[in-house]
């Protein structure tokens, strides 16, 4: 079974500064994906970034990047140059590859609420 843990219920950052959200996971799968999703007050679930476990290179999407430590089962999200629009709940999630024989349901962490201060 997979588990995802986000140990920071709330974080805050000053506008234009950098913040890192933590996530650890546990899986017995050999191949899997990791995601960060953003859920603003509208409650729309928006994909922020995706990491393929077999790739050592950390994924990057504009101001968003991850620090993927496979051996430590850690997957943190770094938001650079924070903007007011980044304020939201952020969910870390894991997803086993279909190639591993699983149907690939997404397992979410508990979420981290990010506040951006002007």
């Amino acid at each position, binding site marked *: 079974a997979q588990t995802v843990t986000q140990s920071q219920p709330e974080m805050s950052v000053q506008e234009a500064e950098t913040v890192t959200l933590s996530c650890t996971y546990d899986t017995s799968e050999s191949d899997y994906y990791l995601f960060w999703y953003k859920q603003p007050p509208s*409650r*729309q*679930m928006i994909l922020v970034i995706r990491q393929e476990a077999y790739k050592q290179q950390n994924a990057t999407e504009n101001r968003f990047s991850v620090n993927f430590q496979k051996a430590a089962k850690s997957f943190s999200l770094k938001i650079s140059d924070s903007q007011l629009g980044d304020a939201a709940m952020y969910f870390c999630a894991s997803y086993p*590859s*279909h190639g591993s024989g699983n149907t690939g*349901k*997404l397992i*979410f962490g508990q979420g981290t609420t990010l506040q951006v201060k002007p």
Partner: protein
Amino acid sequence: AAGVIQSPRHLIKEKRETATLKCYPIPRHDTVYWYQQGPGQDPQFLISFYEKMQSDKGSIPDRFSAQQFSDYHSELNMSSLELGDSALYFCASSLAGGVGEKLFFGSGTQLSVL
């Protein structure tokens, strides 16, 4: 670009009533997932379908049923509604079977049971 469409956006029901939630996946996506998100909680997986067949089942009550139709849209049927069923219900779709699956979520249906 087309996204996952869910209807209705909001639904208010009384206890013991029945509700039907609909989900229209992104065109060419063959896999649909249903999630339930209670207030202040993370989304919980309910059920998924791949090529119109149930592919996985999570913490879905027996009072709920779902199916995926020939046009790949999916419906979640909820009977004998209880107060605890009040939640945001997400549908997500993906293109299964290949490398690099991404789940794309709809805007959700907010169900309130009174």
